[in-house]
């Protein structure tokens, strides 16, 4: 369950950042991106996948969340 910071980069892509590891990757796929639910399974550019407990509304970014490695 790494602690990660989600933020949008200058190009508007969602970026996944693990502070402890200095690991920064763009999110290529997010299960629920629309209004109503935001989160779920996400896939990073390096192929790894994580699960984020979905929010009801798209949250204000940047935001530090805990995610589950899949």
């Amino acid at each position, binding site marked *: 369950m790494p602690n990660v*910071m989600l*933020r949008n980069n200058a190009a508007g892509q969602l970026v996944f950042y693990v*502070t402890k590891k*200095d*690991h*920064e990757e763009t999110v290529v796929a997010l299960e629920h991106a629309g209004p109503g639910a935001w989160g779920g399974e996400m896939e990073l550019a*390096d192929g790894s996948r994580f699960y984020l407990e979905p929010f009801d509304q798209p949250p*204000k970014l940047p*935001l530090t969340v805990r995610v589950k490695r899949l």
Partner: protein
Amino acid sequence: MTMNRQETEQLIQEVLEVYPEATGKQRAKHLMANDPSLEKSNKCIVANKKALPGVMTARGCAYAGAKGVVWGPVKDVLNISHGPVGCGQFSRAGRRNYVTGYSGVNVFNDINFTSDFQEKDVVFGGDKKLAKIISELDTLFPLAKGVTIQSECPIGLIGDDIEAVAKKSAKEIGKVVVPVRCEGFRGVSQSLGHHVANDSLRDWVLHGRDDDPSFESTPYDVAITGDYNIGGDAWSSRILLEEMGLRVIAQWSGDGSIPEMQTTRHAKLNLLHCYRSMNYISRHMEEKYGMPWMEYNFFGPTKIAESLRKIAAFFDSTIQENAERVIAKYQPIMDAIIAKYRPRLEGKRVMLFVGGLRPRHVIGAYEDLGMEVIGAGYEFAHNDDYDRTFKELQDGALIYDDATSFELESFVERLKPDLIGSGIKEKYVFHKMGIPFRQMHSWDYSGPYHGYDGFAIFARDMDMTINNPCWQKLKAPWQRAGAEIIQAAA
């Protein structure tokens, strides 16, 4: 002679041959030939790993990163080096972080405060002594805005509770007291010290004025982050931003102060120069206060113009016009400097081995002078630094992470650069090898190098180092070839 990727890989293999097999295998992961098309470094280079036993590297400790780099330049705090006396004394004022003010009155970063641990403090604990020091310091230096406790190794080993002392003393003296858990044995290099110091700023300082509405902000407020004012670097950066019509409300941490840090949240943009040492706090401020951050590069006219435009693009058209005006104002001056020095420096080859941002940031400045960087490496970078380096460096250039003294010397022997930029530990070795050298951590007692004013000094320094007549005098006259002697006599 520029090497292509294959030749560089070949060179790496040859240099690694002397190591025992296991060591060679480990070290091979830290060395590579540059490929500017790479986006991510984690597949091709290993960084931020413990140095191997038996080799000599140029790394520092967590205390060096926290006290020396991040906290040291803050002018209005009393940095107590908590532990034995040496760490504080040998890191005092060596980095030349310039400040304004009066030493001992409202500026304290040139004084060594230490708890001078003795055996009995190790046996019985140093918390009482620490509390006493803090209240004594408050009496002696009433204008200080805070106290930081920079732990040295023994504090972590004996398990002193400096956080408790900090909380109690903060109440007693009514000022910020920051415990910094930067014991030297933590982590693999000074890089962890930067992180620890950033976290201490986040937890103990940053929110200090969150419910104080008295600060009047303007739409043009910015903060300079990750500039330690070495030789006046932050000042020569700041004037450019001010000429553009922006207002610099905080400097982190060169010539910075606690009140500035606490009002930073009013800035509209966080300008991040040293990504390695301050990205942590910038990311935190973005999350907490919604303050965007942007990396910039103020080395050399090309990169400065690029950065000024990038910064201006964040603001309205007035600032953008001002930025163009500033660039137009300085460009002729820079052209004159390049016209003067470029003929003397054209084609010279440089190898760099420095810390957090310089191996990539100064490449533009060297290229402005017609020089090429053939090798670059970091002492303590992480993979995200290498992500940012590939694009800046030419194809096939040698990259070395946490190079050992043996590797660095072998690379230099083989590549024969015209200039090396590295630290004081390497300086005299390369002087004796007869190679011009600049100490690029604190600009070899010169500077500033940031900004347009800094570039003028940078160009002059590089010229006077490379073209210094002393390099021709290293061979005794009787060892020189006959033709050379006749030439010298003529």
